């Protein structure tokens, strides 16, 4: 039988089989498993049928709890069903998993194993999620490579039908799920051979049906539950045998032989390592290397972890083994050992007791690879070295330096075993320059055109704008087991010149290798421009050095900033992996494949880029020695705090792996205000202020997603020491008469989105092309503006108690959210920034997982910061689903503290002074001035308390700050508020407690890549709604308004910034629950974010996004609580929709259907407006009683 070679990642490898063998697929997106669901949806949308010729139905649910519920129901009703998930998602499935297993339900799910959030969230891979499921009764099958993820997926689906035990098939998140590899594709006949129809008929015969009704899910009592629970035992006993048989059958067909426990190594090994997952491939590779050097070592790969067959296990371990190390990729703090270790110890003991094995090897356990920490041959070797010791250390860690509990094994970072016949390449690129896409393409080309095996793995930094990508590619004559980053590369490419100053790009360059640099400077002049470290490495390692001005070639050929094709051509031209002509032809073929549908134009452009590249690629004559005096500049400024210099700076340089345990907070607590030390310089153009025509409206400041353009009004005397180019002008209005005014850009922090330019209303009257803010190239003005910005920061902040509470006034307030890693032009962050300006010094934020928790809290640097008094937003992220409850808990605690403090003030009134006590309890106002006054009183109170030597005084001292008003903001996206967190949100709002909820509504799951949510509007195309959503957006505001006691506002700063500011102020001041639903434009809408504000206006003008504020306090005043802040629809929805790819796509797919959806959208907008309009006229008979805060 002919089987195809395909170049795919682990997710696709598993999903291919799952889609072929399922009828119902219910999922919920979660990294790193999302792609499996997306692919399944895509295949169904393309009409790809399953093994039996029907289209699997793919359903996106509101949470993993929902997905597994749907899965459970589908299986009870006899459909072949699957799901894909990871991490917290898997944990949400656990209760149903017990049920599914208890009912002996054939089911195979696929898990891209990922860290479960503990002291911090991590999207990366380890086994902490799957290990939390080992008690559910699921069989657990582990794959360590892309090929295995494909093969064992089939074993899982086949075995579950025969054994009736449900299967959890897992592979390592990212390392396997996202690694691209050349594999052998299973043919339909392979699937058919292992999944006979007869088993499916048996399965269906057990389905719930009114034609043969039965009952499942009964409640049982002490008399019977126990026995009934034991009734399933025979199935578990039979399961390993079934898996073994199926593995045998698969082996016969494919030549790939798997066992329950696969042993690789010396038949008389004295040292054996036992582990699961991708790490065992690196171990396998190392064992092969050690064997050649005469060492007696072996590795046991656990494939079927549950049910655990002791007999198969002990038979697989050579009797000669004297010492065994069991490696776990998870941590169970407080346990005797981590789970695989415990099982191995127990298994060996039981085997000995049962007479299955006589020898009694020493067993130690160790931990490795948490959160995708690298696991390399050096680490494997250090484990074998440890096992060779007379008394090997137990409960060790490997891969880190633990200088606190000293558990870590040392390893030699320079240790390298990679064979010479494997080509290795590393590419440093920007996300936006297309490097990753080009490399994926190169892998396909090489995989297709040569017999070589190929591997690609891609590392991204955690920023959403200006993100750095590092691609690791391997090509070799054998399947590649190197499940770790390339450590020594024969080819290193740096696609951005500026990286040379930030990263140790040549660290991985192998001696005698090749270095390709995208350089604006030509081959003669480039050497002098390199930092000393780079020159030294080129000379020492005797690298061949090539340069190309890729941006020039891109410009010449109309490619803009996309240098992917150009750099890819260089790679093939220099690396010699393919003959040059053949490579060029293949690149062109790939271009045609990619862009064919988009017309010859793009193809032509790309072809031209390929041809121009060779003419512009030059080898540099490398001097004998490095003579540069300029070294790589420090990662952070000298004046940065110690922690930032010691810890953050290393993380920024990509050297975080080197930080030892002692450098870290023990409980996940980190300092604020670190983003300001990371000067990213990602904008090629930044705004420049023309003070002469500026209207001083501060709209640019409000709109800036990154707090990179700011306004201050100040005393003229401040200008005394200003840098020469510092711009300033008389303030125009009366409230700060005689003051000076400045708009200042943070040149190194700006992302260049130009949203500020778009919102600027001030045009030069005789040359309207010129605005008060225009974009200009950053490089020439960087240093001068950086100095100006530093000076600007030192100008005293405006007196908070005096600013006007309007758009202009509030923008003089210091933002306590700055320079986040959000996308350039992000539509969410302006709201967060505004919130911190208004209330940041007294706010606690509960942040749902999603974009806002990533740009808000993903290390190395974070944007929330403090003011000069050291106050600022205290921020925490719990989970995705529990955020409303998390925030409510904060409120309850604040109220409890405040209550207790007030009681103590009353009690100690005579000692602290009756007047002070009375003022503390009675006079606090919710205004800025009131808060400042209360803070003064608290300081006075502390002064008095110092002299009182009682426990109560101490207690009051610790609680006194809670006498000052504190605000809780519960922040998250629509995925949280509309879907997974909706139940909790509803409950929290119904509680009546004083919390403020900010929903950053991008109308789609943004962080995980554009899956539809219930906030997705009618006719928008999204993942899981490819043809355009047919159901209107859920009207969350209307639903919550029905409570009557909740403040609800729907806002869009680009349409009405005044209303936005009002809504924030009202929500915060309202002494009950408040909900703000904020229109947030997003890259997932598909247009240039510079026009985000304009699109917001069109959304409002078309009636698609009406603006309103529902304030229960108005009812008390006898007015209608709902105030409609936008006019009836005045433009057609098309005028808004046509500008966004998400809507255009559904039009492209089916214009007639799109038109119907469009008409429906228009009708819905008109109808909704009419309903709101009526409601805005409704006065409620009596007002609910309000309690004073």
């Amino acid at each position, binding site marked *: 039988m002919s089987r195809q070679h395909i170049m795919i990642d682990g997710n696709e490898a598993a999903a291919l089989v799952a889609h072929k063998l399922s009828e119902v697929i219910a999922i919920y997106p979660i990294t790193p498993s*999302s792609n499996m669901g997306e692919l399944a949806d895509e295949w169904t949308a393309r009409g790809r049928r399953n093994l039996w010729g029907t289209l699997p139905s793919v359903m996106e649910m509101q949470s993993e709890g929902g997905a597994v519920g749907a899965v459970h129901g589908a299986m009870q009703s006899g459909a072949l069903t699957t799901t894909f998930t990871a991490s917290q998602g898997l944990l949400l499935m656990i209760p149903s998993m017990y049920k599914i297993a208890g009912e002996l339900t054939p089911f195979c799910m696929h898990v891209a194993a990922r860290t479960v959030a503990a002291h911090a969230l991590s999207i990366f891979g380890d086994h902490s999620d799957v290990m939390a499921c080992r008690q559910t009764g699921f069989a657990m099958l582990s794959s360590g490579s892309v090929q295995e993820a494909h093969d064992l997926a089939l074993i899982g689906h086949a075995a579950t039908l025969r054994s009736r035990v449900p299967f959890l098939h897992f592979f390592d998140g990212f390392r396997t799920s996202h690694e691209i590899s050349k594999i052998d594709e299973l043919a339909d006949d392979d699937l058919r051979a292992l999944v006979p129809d007869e088993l499916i008929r048996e399965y269906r015969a057990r389905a719930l049906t009114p034609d043969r009704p039965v009952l499942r899910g009964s409640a049982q009592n002490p008399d019977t539950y126990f026995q009934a629970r034991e009734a399933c035992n025979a199935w578990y006993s039979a399961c390993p045998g079934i898996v073994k048989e199926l593995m045998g059958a698969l082996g016969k067909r494919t030549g790939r032989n798997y066992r329950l426990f696969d042993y690789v190594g010396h038949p008389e090994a004295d040292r054996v390592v036992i582990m699961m997952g991708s790490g065992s491939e690196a171990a396998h590779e190392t064992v092969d290397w050690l064997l050649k050097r005469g060492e007696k070592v072996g590795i046991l790969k656990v494939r079927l972890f549950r049910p655990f067959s002791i007999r198969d296990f002990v038979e697989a371990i050579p009797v000669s083994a004297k010492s065994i190390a069991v490696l776990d990729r998870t941590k169970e703090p407080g346990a005797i050992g981590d789970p695989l270790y415990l099982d191995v110890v127990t298994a060996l003991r039981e085997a000995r007791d049962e007479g299955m094995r006589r020898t009694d090897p020493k067993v130690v356990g160790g931990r490795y690879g948490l959160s995708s920490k690298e696991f390399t041959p050096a680490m494997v070797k250090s484990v074998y070295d440890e096992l060779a010791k007379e008394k090997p250390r137990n409960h060790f860690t490997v891969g880190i330096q633990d200088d606190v509990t000293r558990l870590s094994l040392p390893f030699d970072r320079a240790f390298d075993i990679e064979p010479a016949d494997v080509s290795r390449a590393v590419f440093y690129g920007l996300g936006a320059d297309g490097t990753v896409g080009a490399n994926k393409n190169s892998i396909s080309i090489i995989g297709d055109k040569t017999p070589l095996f190929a591997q690609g793995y891609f590392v991204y930094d955690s920023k959403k704008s200006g993100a750095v990508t590092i691609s690791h590619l391997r090509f070799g004559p054998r399947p590649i087991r190197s499940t770790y980053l390339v450590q020594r590369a024969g080819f290193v490419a740096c696609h951005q010149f500026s990286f040379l100053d930030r990263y140790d790009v040549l660290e991985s360059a192998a001696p005698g290798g090749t270095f390709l640099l995208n350089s604006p400077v030509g081959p003669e002049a480039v050497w002098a421009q390199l930092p000393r470290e780079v020159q030294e490495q080129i000379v020492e390692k005797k690298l061949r050095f090539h340069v190309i001005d890729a941006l020039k070639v891109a410009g010449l050929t109309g490619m803009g900033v996309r240098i992917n094709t150009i750099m890819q051509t260089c790679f093939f031209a220099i690396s010699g992996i393919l003959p040059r002509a053949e490579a060029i032809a293949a690149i062109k073929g790939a271009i045609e494949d990619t862009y064919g549908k988009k*017309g010859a134009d793009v193809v032509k452009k790309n072809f031209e880029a390929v041809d121009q590249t060779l003419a512009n690629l030059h080898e540099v004559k490398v001097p004998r020695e490095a003579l540069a005096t300029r070294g790589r500049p420090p990662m952070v400024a000298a004046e940065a705090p110690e922690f930032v210099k010691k810890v953050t700076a290393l993380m920024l340089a990509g050297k975080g792996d080197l930080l030892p345990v002692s450098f870290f907070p023990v409980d996940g607590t980190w300092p604020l205000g670190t983003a300001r030390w990371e000067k990213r310089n990602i904008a090629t153009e930044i705004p420049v202020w023309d003070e002469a025509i500026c209207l001083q409206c501060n709209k640019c400041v409000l709109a800036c997603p990154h707090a990179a353009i700011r306004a201050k009004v100040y005393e003229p005397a401040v200008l005394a020491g200003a840098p020469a180019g510092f711009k300033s002008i008389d303030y125009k209005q009366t409230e700060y008469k005689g003051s000076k005014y400045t708009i200042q850009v943070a040149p190194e922090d700006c992302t260049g989105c130009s949203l500020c330019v778009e919102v600027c209303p001030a045009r030069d009257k005789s040359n309207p092309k010129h605005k008060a803010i225009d974009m200009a190239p950053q490089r020439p003005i960087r240093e001068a503006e950086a100095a100006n910005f530093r000076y600007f920061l030192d100008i005293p902040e405006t007196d908070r108690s005096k600013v006007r509470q309007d758009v202009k006034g509030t923008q003089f307030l210091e933002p306590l959210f700055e320079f986040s890693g959000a996308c350039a032009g992000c539509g969410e962050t302006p709201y967060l920034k505004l919130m911190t300006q208004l209330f940041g010094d007294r706010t606690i934020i509960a942040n749902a997982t999603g974009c806002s928790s990533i740009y808000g809290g993903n290390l190395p640097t974070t944007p929330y910061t403090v003011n000069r008094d050291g106050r600022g937003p205290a921020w925490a992220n719990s989970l995705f689903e529990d955020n409303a409850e998390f925030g409510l808990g904060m409120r309850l605690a604040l109220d409890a503290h405040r209550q207790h403090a007030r009681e103590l003030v009353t009690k100690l009134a005579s000692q602290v002074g009756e007047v002070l006590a009375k003022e503390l309890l009675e006079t606090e106002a919710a205004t800025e001035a009131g808060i400042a006054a209360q803070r003064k009183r608290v300081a006075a109170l502390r002064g008095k308390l110092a002299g009182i030597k009682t426990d109560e005084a101490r207690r009051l001292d610790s609680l006194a700050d809670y006498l000052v008003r504190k605000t809780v903001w519960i922040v998250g996206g629509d995925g949280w508020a509309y879907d997974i967190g909706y139940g909790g949100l509803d409950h929290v709002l119904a509680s009546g407690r004083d919390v403020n909820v900010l929903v950053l509504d991008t109308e789609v799951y943004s962080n995980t890549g554009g899956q539809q949510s219930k906030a997705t509007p009618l006719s928008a195309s999204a993942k899981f709604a490819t043809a355009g959503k047919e159901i209107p957006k859920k009207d969350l505001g209307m639903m919550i308004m029905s409570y009557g006691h909740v403040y609800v506002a729907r806002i869009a700063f680009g349409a009405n910034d005044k209303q936005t500011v009002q809504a924030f102020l009202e929500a915060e001041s309202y002494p009950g629950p408040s909900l703000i639903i904020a229109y947030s434009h997003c890259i997932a809408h598909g247009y240039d974010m510079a026009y985000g504000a304009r699109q917001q206006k069109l959304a409002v003008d078309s009636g698609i996004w009406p603006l309103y504020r529902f304030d229960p306090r108005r009812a008390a005043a006898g007015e209608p609580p709902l105030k409609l802040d936008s006019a009836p629809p005045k433009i057609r929805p098309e005028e808004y929709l046509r500008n966004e790819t998400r809507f255009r*796509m559904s039009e492209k797919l089916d214009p007639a259907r799109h038109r119907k959806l469009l008409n429906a959208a228009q009708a819905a907008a008109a109808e909704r407006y009419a309903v709101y309009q009526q409601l805005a006229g409704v006065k409620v008979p009596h007002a609910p009683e309000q309690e004073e805060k």
Partner: protein
Amino acid sequence: MSANLSTTWLGLKLPHPLMPGASPLVDDLETVAALEAAGAAAIVMHSLFEEQIRRETDETEMAMDAHSDTYVEARSYFPPRDMFPLGPESYLEHLKRLKSAVRIPVIASLNGSTRGGWIEFARAMQDAGADALELNVYDLGADPDESAAAAEERILRIVESMRKSVKIGFAVKLSPFYTSLANLARRISLAGADGLILFNRFYQPDIDVEALEVSPTLHLSTSSELLLRLRWLAILSPAVNVPLAVSGGVHDTLDVVKAVMSGAGAVQVVSALLQHGPERLKSLIQGFRAWLDEHDYVSVAQMKGSMSLARCPDPKAVERSNYAHLLQSWRKAQVRS
């Protein structure tokens, strides 16, 4: 006996001269069905703008590709690009849908500025089943470096290349803004065009004086716009040897009659249909037929060109003098009121 209304346009035998002109009317299959039911002799699709295609392709590419593979949690932010027909692809898909939905001829329309674009798209339209083509020469003459002669040459080269690359008939849709329109029209016809359409209507930029921004507008036509076209039909119909069509300003039965009398072999209607719906076409056809019958015309052929420069009783009035005359009478009217 009823008059014979049949006419030939771009090699297509049509039962009468009336058809909806290039417009968004044909975007929707239901409207198209209604137009066919109303008796349309053919369907003219909206123009495929070469420039628009390039821009849309670039924009979509930017929107979909720019963020692909840039962030660790999301490989992309949209369903796969290749699932959506973009650029000319979606136009061609729509053309195919129209072809299978209606029995009357479908005339595709394209609008571009480069020779490459014209030819490539025209061929694709022919392959997708278009019965004929319209080339909309959307030429403002805004390039100070291009002389009138060069601009005309450019058009002629396009027409020549088109002739070589497609077999189906095609017409050139012109604006009235050429120095020697009659000469250009003749050369276009000699270069291989099968017909001329008078005239296209440009989007006119308006100015938002508050925001200091330009806002493009397109107003629906009125019957007053027909007059310019009548004159040029009358001038060109004897001067060129290919059929002419009128587009712009046909709103009622008499407009149709006048256009045919001036020399139009095909009459395109857009604004009237946008205002009154597809059924309007039916009443225009019926009205035209009735008018011919009432006035004892036996055929459209008999009427066509009867008021052209070659045959009308007072050619001077067409060519020149009515300009001065009309302006004077308009001034008198102003004074009177």
